[in-house]
């Protein structure tokens, strides 16, 4: 990639070299602050992160089970206008995801209208027949969504991926802000940065709003984690702490008389809402994978009896895989009768023979992704891969075309980043978090910016060596 240097959209600097308004003060500060000060503060940030134990685990890496995600101390800035447009688009998108899920598990009008093919629902391995005709409280399926967006020009946001199952990363959004406030208080005097620390309150309000109608006026909310060996465990405990609710594992809960209880030092206590950070497959060994040690036997029957709310609902996977992604603009139009505010990246569905042919012919120019992959695992970046890798990947695609989609390599926007060579532009994406409750949709301004730290790289996933930045939405 680095050999050809196309004109990427840089969020700070216009092509003519001038500084965009939102970055004016920051650019000045970057010009004047000595490099060793930046260096020192970066080390300080790393020290603090390690100390509070904000770590994540990398699967398939036995040597280092706990690692830090590199943190870049230069914030990424969005102005109010950009954010307003983005947040309207996010709300629209998540509303459509919820409407689609409700329809897919109930009347299936979208199939009758011929908007999406049947296999997209029924042929999907994460489709849950248990959810057919099952009402969920207030018809909300996705209470917590993480929508990955990227920019390629000043005017448009593209959605790269919807995450409607158990999106993670919000703890980094919150901790990054804490660190920035601690390390660079002077910057916040010049910049009216919209706060994010109301996220925990918003999340709790959202979760309480979707409690079963049968529960008390002050429902008991818990967070369910697979345990300390999960890569996002830090986040689970962080959220439980911020929400002031119990962090439970499957073994802490049991089912009795169609109700769900947790074991406490004072005896059993009823649970009304579970913010579960455990995949469908593992939540109930009686309903799904019988070998799961992480779940609660009988949880699904309590859920189906309407006595507990799961956030997110069971079966949301059919709305966020990369195959349904390509239909999202039509899905939005179908349910909301609106034009999509956020664009979709052009997507080739390998399931369709002519598109498969195009993909195989142009595979060296495309990004090819597994439909059910996530976290940057199992994808091919054509322009950056060698011939052998490409051939091997092409063979995989040919063997199972349904399992793949392809997209053109996007010229992701860049932001100034503090790296070995000094301050240099690096590619970024953004994951804002969208909360949907009975009363309203809540989005804290910003989200998690991920940055590809090596020069020219477009892969921002933390499991693949990406870092994070604080994201500022200016309130002006």
């Amino acid at each position, binding site marked *: 990639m680095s050999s050809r240097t196309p004109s990427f959209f840089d969020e700070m600097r216009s092509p003519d070299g001038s500084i965009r308004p939102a970055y004016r003060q920051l650019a000045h500060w970057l010009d004047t602050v000595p490099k060793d000060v930046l260096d020192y503060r970066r080390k300080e940030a790393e020290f603090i992160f390690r*100390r*509070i134990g904000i770590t994540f685990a990398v699967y398939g890496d036995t040597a280092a089970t706990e690692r830090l995600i590199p943190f870049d101390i230069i914030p990424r800035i969005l102005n109010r206008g950009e954010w307003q447009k983005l947040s309207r688009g996010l709300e629209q998108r998540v509303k459509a995801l919820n409407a689609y899920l409700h329809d897919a598990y109930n009347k299936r009008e979208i199939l009758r209208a011929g908007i999406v093919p049947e296999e997209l629902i029924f042929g999907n391995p994460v489709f849950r027949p248990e959810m057919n005709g099952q009402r969920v409280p207030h018809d909300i399926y996705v209470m917590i969504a993480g929508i990955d967006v990227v920019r390629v020009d000043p005017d448009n946001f593209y959605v790269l991926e919807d995450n409607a199952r158990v999106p993670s990363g919000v703890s980094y959004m919150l901790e990054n802000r804490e660190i920035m406030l601690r390390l660079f208080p002077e910057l916040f005097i010049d910049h009216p940065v919209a706060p994010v620390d109301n996220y925990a309150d918003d999340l709790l309000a959202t979760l309480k709003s979707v409690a079963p109608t049968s529960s008390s006026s002050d429902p008991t909310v818990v967070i369910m984690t697979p345990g*300390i060996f999960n890569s996002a465990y830090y986040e689970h405990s*962080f959220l439980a*702490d911020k929400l002031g609710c*119990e962090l439970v594992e499957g073994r*802490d809960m049991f089912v009795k008389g169609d109700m769900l209880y947790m074991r*406490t*030092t*004072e005896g059993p206590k009823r649970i009304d809402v579970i913010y579960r950070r455990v995949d469908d497959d593992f939540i109930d060994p009686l309903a799904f994978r019988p070998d799961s040690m992480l779940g609660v036997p009988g949880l699904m029957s309590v859920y189906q009896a309407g006595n507990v709310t799961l956030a997110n609902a069971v079966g949301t996977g059919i709305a966020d895989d990369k195959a349904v992604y390509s239909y999202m603009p039509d899905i939005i139009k179908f349910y909301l009768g609106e034009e999509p505010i956020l664009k979709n990246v052009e997507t080739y569905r390998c399931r369709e023979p002519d598109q498969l042919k195009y993909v195989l012919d142009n595979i060296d120019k495309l990004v090819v992704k597994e439909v059910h992959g996530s976290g940057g695992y199992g994808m091919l970046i054509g322009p950056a891969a060698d011939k052998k890798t490409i051939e091997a990947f092409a063979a995989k695609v040919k063997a199972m075309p349904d399992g793949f989609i392809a997209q053109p390599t996007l010229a992701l926007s860049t932001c100034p980043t503090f790296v070995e060579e000094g301050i240099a532009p690096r590619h970024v994406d953004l994951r804002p978090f969208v909360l949907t409750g009975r009363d309203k949709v809540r989005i804290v301004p910003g989200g998690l910016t991920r940055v590809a730290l090596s020069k020219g790289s477009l892969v921002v996933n933390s499991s693949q060596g990406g870092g994070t930045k604080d994201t500022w939405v200016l309130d002006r």
Partner: protein
Amino acid sequence: MLSRTASNLYWLSRYVERAECLARILDATYRLSALPQGYGSETNEWDSAIATAGCVISFKEKYEEANERTVTEYLAFSLDNPSSIRNCLEIARTNARSVRTALTGEMWDAINSAWHELHRYDPKRITREEFTRFLNFVMETSVRFDGTSFRTMLRNDAYWFSRLGFLVERADATARILDVKYHVLLPREAQVGGPLDYFQWASILRSVSARTSYHWVYRESVKPWLVADLLILNRQMPRSLASCYENINRYLDDLAQFYGRQGQAQRLARATTNKLENGKIEDIFQSGLHEFITQFLIDNNRVGNAIGDQYLI
């Protein structure tokens, strides 16, 4: 509070306390082994360290002989020994991670920093001097953890479970230290209180860091029955069985009041406390110190199990 959270808090402080006890035992053993021949007893100090740690059988499976190298390795660093200092601190941190939300930031920091520090010591290359530093580090970790709990935790069930774990472990360790020394040193009447034992008894005081306390309390040279009195019955002495039980009782009562009901744990703890409050050291020696301690270890274990059954599962 979740039973698992309570359990993790309880075991977290037990393991931190256990690590400290082991460090003290090792420290005292090093001192003793450094004495010229003739000052110590005929028995091997390193054997008695293993006995005090309560792992004779598993140790013998792995090593032929107890000496400085093997005992240090097994008690401090071995991954095969579930209660080695290293494993204690590893387990403590795992427990701490599981209950992050129930710990204060300061407590987490104490455990997490210790865990990072632990990985700086290379057991294969450690020198004597470094090992002394290592033992100091372990003792400081425990003091820091304990201090942060005391200073920062809310006085509610989380705090009481954490205290209970610490106290049950501490009572167990004090009793074992006494028992092993008694058993090893004083099986024959003629030697009881003999001049050669002086350093052995002094080493007991060292292993519970009570030399100065002893002199303040008794203002006498070191005598076996007074050492036993200090460690069993004296409520001023925070490591004594009586003091541990005074507090176990108190925290169990706090729990009972908080939750509005009591059970087996409270009853058993009260019975054990009564025995200690009414005990006289002359009677204990008369009917057999070893028998007394053996019974205490059984009672203490029962209290631990009752706490487990009542609250932690």
